[in-house]
C-alpha cells in the first residue's frame, strides 16, 4: 500500500485530503500537535476505507524533534502533505511579537525544518512527492494579512526552489494555492461563495493534481487570474488600495 503522511492532520482541509487518499486505498499517517485528538479520524479512515491509519505527535515549531519524528514513522511515506498553518490575528501580530512569531513559525520556519529532512530522504531514495499547501495570500502583501502572507510567500518560494532542486532526482514537489476555503479557520469570515472552495473540493483537486504530477495548483480557477491581476497592479496604485 502506498502511504500518505499528513502534517497538520487536524484541519478541515487535511481531513478531506486524508479521506480522498484513503478512498483510493492509500494508508494514512496522521500527524499533529495533539495526536490523541486525531483518534476519531484514525478510526473513521479505517472503518470507512479499510486502510491502515496511524497517529503521530508532531509540533511544527519544535524543530529539534523533527528528525526523530520522521525517522520514527512506521514506514517511510510515499507522499507527504504539509497542511499545517496558522492564520493568526494581523492586528495583534503588528503589536505583539509573540503572535507574529507564531504566524511565521507555523507557516514558514516549521515547514522548512521538517520538509528539509523529508526532502533529504526522498532525494536519497530517488522518489517521493511533497505537497505543500500554501496560500494566495503569499503572492502579494496586503495590509489586512501581510504577516501571514509573507510567511506563506516564503513557503511558496521554498517549495518552488525545492521543486527545482529535486526534479532531477525524481522527487516531485507540488504547491497548492487554495484561495478561500470554507473551514473552521475561516468560519468567522464572510467569504464570497463563488471564490470559496469547500474542503472536499480542495481534496479532490489535490488528489487529481497529484496523480498528474502538477507543479502549481490553484483550486478555484479564477484565483489564478485574480492573483495575476493583483500582482500586476503598479505599486503606486496598490499602496492606496485597502486590501
Amino acid at each position: 500500500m502506498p502511504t500518505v503522511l499528513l502534517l497538520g492532520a487536524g484541519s478541515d482541509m487535511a481531513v478531506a485530503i486524508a479521506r480522498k487518499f484513503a478512498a483510493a486505498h492509500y494508508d494514512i499517517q496522521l500527524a499533529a500537535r495533539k495526536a490523541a485528538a486525531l483518534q476519531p479520524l484514525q478510526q473513521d479512515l479505517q472503518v470507512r476505507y479499510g486502510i491502515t491509519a496511524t497517529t503521530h505527535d508532531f509540533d511544527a515549531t519544535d524543530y529539534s524533534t523533527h528528525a526523530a519524528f520522521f525517522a520514527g514513522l512506521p514506514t517511510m511515506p510515499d507522499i507527504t502533505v504539509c497542511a499545517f498553518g496558522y492564520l493568526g490575528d494581523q492586528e495583534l501580530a503588528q503589536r505583539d511579537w509573540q503572535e507574529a512569531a507564531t504566524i511565521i513559525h507555523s507557516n514558514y520556519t516549521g515547514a522548512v525544518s521538517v520538509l528539509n529532512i523529508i526532502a533529504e530522504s526522498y532525494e536519497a531514495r530517488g522518489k517521493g512527492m511533497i505537497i505543500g499547501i500554501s496560500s494566495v495570500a503569499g503572492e502579494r502583501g496586503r495590509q489586512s494579512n501581510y504577516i501571514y502572507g509573507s510567511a506563506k510567500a516564503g513557503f511558496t518560494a521554498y517549495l518552488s526552489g525545492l521543486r527545482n532542486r529535486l526534479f532531477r532526482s525524481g522527487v516531485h514537489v507540488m504547491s497548492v494555492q487554495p484561495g478561500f476555503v470554507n473551514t473552521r479557520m475561516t468560519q468567522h469570515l464572510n467569504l464570497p461563495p463563488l471564490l470559496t472552495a469547500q474542503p472536499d473540493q480542495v481534496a479532490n483537486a489535490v488528489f487529481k493534481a497529484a496523480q498528474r504530477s502538477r507543479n502549481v495548483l490553484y483550486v478555484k480557477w479564477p484565483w489564478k487570474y485574480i492573483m495575476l491581476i493583483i500582482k500586476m497592479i503598479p505599486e503606486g496604485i496598490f499602496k492606496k488600495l485597502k486590501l
Partner: protein
Amino acid sequence: MQKRLANWGNYPAITSEENAFTQEQQLRDFVVSNHQLIARGNGRCYGDASLGKHSISMLKYDKILSFDEQNGFLETQAGVTLDQILDIIVPKGWFLPVTPGTKFITVGGAVASDVHGKNHHVDGAFSGHITEMDVITGDGETVTCSQGRHTDLFWATCGGMGLTGVITRVKFDLKKIETAYIKQKQLKARNLEEVIRLFDEYKHYTYSMAWIDCLQKGDSFGRSILIVGEHATKADLNPKQQEAPLKLPAKPRLTVPFNLPSFILNTFTVKAFNWLYYGKNFKKEINNVVPYEPFFYPLDAILHWNRGYGKAGFIQYQFVLPLEHKAGLVAILQRISEKGWGSFLAVLKVFGHQDSLISFPMEGYTLALDFPVRKGLFEFLDELDEIVLQYGGRLYLSKDARMKQDVFWKSYPNANRFADIVKTYNPGKRFESLQSERLLLTK
C-alpha cells in the same frame, strides 16, 4: 459568523451565529461559556427546532468510530449523515434499523427527533436501537447514557429536540440484509376505508406507508396507494442483480436549482399530479423488486425539492391519532378537502406501540401533509389542531414551526416530567431553540 438559517420548510428563517467543532474539549468549552445554544444537524427538520441564537453545527463531527461487522453495531459521532452510513454498511450486508424518508439527516438528528420509519409498527423508533450515547450537558460534562444508565437523560434526549444537551457519540445496532433491494407491493385503494383495511391486512409486512390524494370527495374520499415491502433475499433478484446483490447501480441526481414561484404548486397542479399518480393506468396491484433508495427515499432523488414551494416556504403538518379515533382522521381530511388546500405529499402510516417519554409516535394513524405558507394558513392549522386535540392526538415536534403552547402541553402527557429533566441537565436554559421558547419547553 452571522448566517441566514432555515430548515427544510424554509420557514421560519433567522440570522444565527454558527459554530462548528471537531474536538470535544473545544465543544465543551463553548457550551459552558455561552447561552441560547442549540445543536443543529443537517437542518432536515422542517420548522424551528434547530434554529436558535447560537447554533452548533454538528456536520464536522462526522467520524465513524467503529463498525462491528460480525454483530452489526455501529458507533459514530453525532454529525455523520445516514447516507454516509449506508454507503459503508450496505455493501457489508447491514442496514439501518430505522430510517426516516430522507437519508440526509444526521445521527444526532435521528436521536433528538427519535425518528420513525415505515417499519415503526414492527421495529419501533430509533431510540429502541441505541446501545449507548454521549451527551454534553449544560454544565459541560460528557455523560454516557443508555436504557440502563442515566436513564432519565437517555429518555429525555430521545425525542428531546436537543434540549438536554449536545449528543456527540451514538452506538446503535444494525439490521442484517442479504441484498440491497426491496421486494415491494403497491396496492391501489379506492378510499380511506379501503386503505385502512389494507393496512390491517398487510400489517405483517415490515415496511408500509400510503400516499393519499386529499382532494377527492364522495366515494373516492381518501383514495390512496399503499406501499409495503420487505428486504429482498438473493432468490428474489434477477440473475444480473444476483451477481452483486449488495451493490446498487449508480444513478443520476436531479436538483431544483432555485425557488419556484409558488403558483406552480396550486390546487390545479396538485390535482393534475394526483390524477396522474392515481389515474386509471395504475393497476390494482403491482409487485416488483427495487433498489432500496427509491423505496425509502423517493424524494431524495430530487435534491432541494423543498424549493418548489417558493420563497415563503411551507409547513409540514404531521399529527398522530390513537388507533380508536379513525373518525378524527376523516374529520381532518374532510376539512382539508373542503378548504381545497391539498398537498402533493400526504403520507399515511400506522404506528405501533410506543411508550417513551417525549417521542412523537403512539399507537395509531399518522398523517403528514405539506401546506405552502400563505395568508390564513396558520389560522386554518389552529383549527386542525383543535380536532387533533379533541381526538387525543398530537403533533410531531420535528415538523412543527407554529403550534401554540397549550396544544403542546395538552397533548404530550409527559411534558412536565420532560421539562423537569431538561431543567436538571440544562440549568439556566443554556440550550434553547426558537421552538423551545415558543412552546415554553425550557420554562
